[in-house]
């Protein structure tokens, strides 16, 4: 394996103990981890019954790192095996699964993915709003026209869902059960003798309680519960914990900056006896956080511990020198020159200064790059111009990759609309991929499944079969054919489904006569008929089993199978009454996922197995771009609203329906304070702390955006957006000014 000197040092020198590796973007941390795992095995440091445990953040990274370790083992002349790669969630699942009784669940517990999770949360919030209709309404002004009321109620109801979700998440991270939260509120109330204090926290707590009941009744665990359950299992039986420690005598953790304290605790528990725990991460890229649960400071704190050794990975061949310089200047400005001293401490770490590769490196930096700052009159202009520029780029360079990154989903949609319009002029070529909500692989799988389930729900409708065929061809699964073959389409439309799919021996011909089909066309039609007839026979099964049966015949990629499986589970209805949600409902829900109307998945794109395609523009959010790189990157909406510098100023997330207060933030801060057992900090101070963290996180988000670009980085903003005037983000102005 080819290793850079810094990488080789880690691989050769590490023989045990705790190690923190600070790795800048593009410095090859996965590569280094794989080499280290192989080296530990080669040195015979892992017994026959034991495994090197590699923990990484994303599902697709699991496959990637597994393949690399296998390769490294082969290079060293070793046989496959002796290691195990998990995501933190799959590790937690493996732990719980081994002893569910210790975690307080039964063996048939189920894991809720984001889809069912958000569905449950919405229902819990709705239940609250129904139960406490008057109380809930009392937060809105009373003198409203019916129209205004309707608008405000709808906005407040969205905010209520968010409020419930955030209180739930925070409570779980603080390991507070609904009863514990209730007790905290009651104690506070008794102490202060103040009736009805902390109203938003009470609402959030009520929703949390309901949500928790719903999950409990179904034996379901959401992702946070899963982590919590694993910790409980490890705490509840020391022998069990020690046994797992012996099984995994070395723990290598990737993307450590994204681990929450709870997740960190799992690994700390597992490594308690042997202490062999390598954490690789970049605190400057800690952006998975919507609030304090995961935070750059946790990984930094780990690094500072006296029993932890630190080693750097600072050489990166990803970007051109100009872009590296810009990223470094951003770090420098944020740590030394930011106007707010608290932000200086919280935002970025000066350890993360990127060094370009030395001469002779196998992955050298691109020789030159371009950075451009553009301002536009308004957001329409920004969306139009950026889209046009990106299209010109991909039309010229089929082999080069390009992304338009937006800080918000909303602006991303405007870009997509602009691209849609341009796309009509290029019918022959797909110019862009909309990756805003659900990554393409998830949507492709959902789209095919939606059509398949829809056809099962209305097997007499041949148009549904035609749509199914088109979806299968587009996704490259099932019988091959040409989607535009009008003869096949016409034939399917005119066929009698019962004759085509379930021919009776004595009956009329399966296909209408008169259309002479080519042999390959006939083969396709019959293969399609055989396949769909089979699904129809399976359609008497429960819906999850039907989806699994369909998936087993369509998909061969590991990732696709995994997606189909999790879709099947989340669409499973085991308690509906009347008896079952119809297949048509399930198809509709799959459609919503495929069409990005329903969020299924909020992780990064790379998590879903996405890779940029040359000659196509990727449109996504900056959050989801993590871990990926493109030749050219457009960073949009880089203004003072999205990337504020002033922690005392206004910032996004306020509920406009409630005249400027932010229920979710208030509730969270209240809960934090109660859980810390203190009114020690004044409310105003808590609010300021939250805003500093927000400002710091937005700076890291900007840093992630900048470091996605290999050669070209185009930064843009609008002077007028959302009916207000805007300026470019101070950070960008300052670092570009320094650069001249």
């Amino acid at each position: 394996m080819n290793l850079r000197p810094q990488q080789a040092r880690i691989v050769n020198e590490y023989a045990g103990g705790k190690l923190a590796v600070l790795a800048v973007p593009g410095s090859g941390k996965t590569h280094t981890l794989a080499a280290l795992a192989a080296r530990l095995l080669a040195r015979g440091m892992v017994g026959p019954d034991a495994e090197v445990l590699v923990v990484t953040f994303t599902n697709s990274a699991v496959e990637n790192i597994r393949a690399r370790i296998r390769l490294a083992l082969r290079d060293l002349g070793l046989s496959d095996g002796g290691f195990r790669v998990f995501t933190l969630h799959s590790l937690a699942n493996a732990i719980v699964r081994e002893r569910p009784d210790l975690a307080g669940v039964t063996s048939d517990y189920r894991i809720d993915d984001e889809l069912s999770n958000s569905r449950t949360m919405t229902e819990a919030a709705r239940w609250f709003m129904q139960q406490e209709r008057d109380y809930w309404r009392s937060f809105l002004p009373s003198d409203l026209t019916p129209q205004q009321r309707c608008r405000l109620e709808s906005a407040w109801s969205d905010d209520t869902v968010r409020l419930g979700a955030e209180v739930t998440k925070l409570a779980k991270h603080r390991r507070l059960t609904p009863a514990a939260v209730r007790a905290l509120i009651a104690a506070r109330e008794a102490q202060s003798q103040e009736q009805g204090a902390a109203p938003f926290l009470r609402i959030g707590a009520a929703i949390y309680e309901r949500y928790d009941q719903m999950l409990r009744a179904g034996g379901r665990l959401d992702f946070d519960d899963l982590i919590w359950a694993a910790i409980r299992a490890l705490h509840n039986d020391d022998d069990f914990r020690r046994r797992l420690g012996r099984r995994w005598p070395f723990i290598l953790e990737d993307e450590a900056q994204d681990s929450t304290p709870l997740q960190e605790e799992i690994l700390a528990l597992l490594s308690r006896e042997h202490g062999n725990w390598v954490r690789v991460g970049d605190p400057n890229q800690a952006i998975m956080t919507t609030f304090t649960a995961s935070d750059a400071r946790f990984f930094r704190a780990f690094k500072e511990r006296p029993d932890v050794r630190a080693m750097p990975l600072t050489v990166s061949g990803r970007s051109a020198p100009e872009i590296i310089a810009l990223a470094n200047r951003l770090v420098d400005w944020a740590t030394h020159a930011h106007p707010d001293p608290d932000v200086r401490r919280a935002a970025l770490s000066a350890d993360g200064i990127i060094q370009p590769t030395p001469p002779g490196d196998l992955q050298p930096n691109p020789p030159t790059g371009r950075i451009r700052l553009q301002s536009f009159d308004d957001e329409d202009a920004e969306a139009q111009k950026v889209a046009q520029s990106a299209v010109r780029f991909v039309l010229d360079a089929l082999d080069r990759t390009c992304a338009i990154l937006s800080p918000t989903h909303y602006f991303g949609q405007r870009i997509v609309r602009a691209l849609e319009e341009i796309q009509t002029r290029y019918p022959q070529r797909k110019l862009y991929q909309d990756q805003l909500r659900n990554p393409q692989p998830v949507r492709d799988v959902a789209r095919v499944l939606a059509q398949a389930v829809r056809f099962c729900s209305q097997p007499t409708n041949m148009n549904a079969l035609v749509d199914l065929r088109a979806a299968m061809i587009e996704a490259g699964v099932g019988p091959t054919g040409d989607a535009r073959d009008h003869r096949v389409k016409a034939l399917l439309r005119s066929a009698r489904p019962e004759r085509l799919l379930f021919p009776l021996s004595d009956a009329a011909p399966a296909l209408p006569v008169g259309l002479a089909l080519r042999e390959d066309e006939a083969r396709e039609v019959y293969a399609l008929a055989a396949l769909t007839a089979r699904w129809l026979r399976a359609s008497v099964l429960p819906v999850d089993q039907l989806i699994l049966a369909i998936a087993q015949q369509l998909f061969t990629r590991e990732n696709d199978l995994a997606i189909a499986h999790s879709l099947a589970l989340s669409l499973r209805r085991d308690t509906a009454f009347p008896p079952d949600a119809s297949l048509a409902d399930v198809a509709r829900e799959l459609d919503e996922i495929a069409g990005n109307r329903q969020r299924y998945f909020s992780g990064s794109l790379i998590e879903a197995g996405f890779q940029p395609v040359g000659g196509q523009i990727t449109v996504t959010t900056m959050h989801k771009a993590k871990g990926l790189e493109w030749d050219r990157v457009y960073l949009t909406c880089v203004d003072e609203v999205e990337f504020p510098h002033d922690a005392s100023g206004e910032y996004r997330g306020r509920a406009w329906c409630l005249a400027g207060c932010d229920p979710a933030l208030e509730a969270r801060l209240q809960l934090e304070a109660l859980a810390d057992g203190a009114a020690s900090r004044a409310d105003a101070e808590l609010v300021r702390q939250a805003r500093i963290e927000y400002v710091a996180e937005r700076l890291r988000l900007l840093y992630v955006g900048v470091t996605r670009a290999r050669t070209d980085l185009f930064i843009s903003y609008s002077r007028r957006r959302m009916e207000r005037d805007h300026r470019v983000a101070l950070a960008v102005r300052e670092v570009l000014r320094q650069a001249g």
Partner: protein
Amino acid sequence: MSKRYLIGHPGVGKTARLTERLVELIGGGVRPDRILILVPQESHAQRFKAALALAREAALASREGRRAQRARLGQPEIHTFFGLAQQHVSLFFPRIALRAGFADPYREPVWMNVEAAQYLLDRIVAPRIGEFEHLRMPRSRLLIQILDDLNRAATMGFPLEELADRLASAWHGVEPRQQAYRAVQDIALAFRRFCLQHALVDFSLGMELFRAHLLAADFYREYVAARYRHVLADNVEEAAPIIHDFLRLLLETSETAMLAEDTPGGFRVNLGAAPQSAHALRLVCEVTPIPDPRLQPGAPDSPARFGQALMRAINERAAQRALRSSAVEKLYDGEAPTHYWATMVQAVADRIGALVRSGVAAREIAVVAPVVEDVLCFELEERLKRYGVGAHAVRPSRPLHDQPLVRALVTFARLGYPEWAQPVSPSELARALALVISGLDVVRAQLIADAARRACGPGGIVALPSLDEPSLWDRVGQPFHERYAALRGWLTIWAGGHPAQGAPLDLFWYELAAGPMSQPGFVFGEDAEAREGCDKLIASARAFREAFEQADLQSWPTGESIHPPEMSVLGLPPRPEVAERVDAGQAYVIALMQNVLAAEYAPERTPDVPEGSILLAPVYTYLTGNYRSRYQFWLNVNALNWHERFYQPLTHPYVLSREWSPGMRWTDDDEQRASRDLLARLVGGLAFRCGDKIYLAASRLTMAGQEESGMLAQALRGL
């Protein structure tokens, strides 16, 4: 020889010796009605019945008049372990009821099935659900665990009042569980009180009555001593400790006895099977180990030999131990880069096809897996069709709710009881029709359902309309018209007529099955399996109704028993208002569709495999059904669930057993040992039941696209 105890592997001829002994007894002039034969399940009785018929023939033909005369004197009693206990409890009920605490000792008791017990328990649990805040499980699981605890206390013979302390003493986690254990115990006791109050007997109470009020009573000992002079008992390792107590009594009081123990065994864990407690019986018997000819030196290589080596490898944790056998074949390549679940199923189907083509009868082949999902059944069945082979799945533990036939019968019930106001959707109707009308596919069924929807209008289908457009039946086929019309006619008459008579749901299903559905053109006329499934549902609904009526649940005070609104969360939609008055049928359907009702615990009979089909069964079902095959396919050998027991925090198969001394802690080492021991017994049990060859099948990725590598996979590494 008067008391004999046979021990041996499955397949060495223990049952044969028992039946020979039966013949010998009758041939020797013993009165048949003085003989007691005990077996683990009803279908096991077949071999004894066959032997009996032969013996009687021989005796009748013999010249000695006295012997022939004796042979005419009645029948030997053949019982399942629990069947006998239940019968004797019923027999002596009037005598023991008062002392046992029944509120009205003169009231005839109703025996509850699991479904009724679950339903009743659900109503007791509902107001206390908050006490399980730290635990997370579906309501049905909670109910099952409490029933499990009740059953364990009864079959092991410890008082319910000890339950919480036993569980608590073995638990040593940092978080408190005492409160939850206490709640379980309180609920179990409340359930017991309710049963005594209303003369309801569930499995646990039945066993408790047997233990505390019969086994310990002098009159009963005298009765047993007079009644049973000769005892034959097979598979005693599958019996629970209180049955072992009963056997000990029989050993004391009878003239002769022959008991047989299968080893490895003890697979009826749910019913308290306890091989260790059977060991005590050996002390009072002459023990005869029966050697396994397949393991003798010089015997050809066999699955049994492999099984023995594999058991050793698992028990000794000898992952490196070389396993060599010509009676085993892997259907996968350990080095293969990708291997999907679907590819594994295909490989299995192809090999089965090849075997059948080479002349092996399909029913001599079995496919076993730790879990048999619908999708596995479906996929295997589809792939075997190409070879003209059927797949007969035996899955007794499948929830009723998930069985398509049950769903179809519920759909028809909703059409038969319009006052429930539960209209049927076209796709439900289409699926139900396709399931019960033979030869009707889903597409043609959908054509009918579409027409029905058009005829019924927007309110949904509450009654089947008459559909007479010729164009419809031209497409669907005339024969189906007649069948539809017959079904519709019957349903219309039922729906119009029954409310006055208040006809119960089980009667509806019974009449439906016996009436239109038994006609030619409907599956019940042709498909024995479907008919049996329906019979089970009818029996379940009937037993449910009897319990429901006995407890007068219809008018049960609703204040405390019906879920308060915030608790009405079995799932997402709030529970429909059961509060007012529902009859037993509607309550049954609601509970069934909400999945509160689980499946039966252990089947009394395991069906035979029909000609031309292979057997597909979960490992436990295969073992408890005591199936034998020439060829076995073990699926997913990498999977973790080969060795994982079903974990449940509120019950414990080891801690709630007789071997467990109160106060001991259950450690992770114990857990590991138990897993290992269980896995070894499972694979041994399988291998000793296999004649010619075992095929191992695995995929690198599970159905969910994940990698697994369990204890079995480790042990097989040496292969």
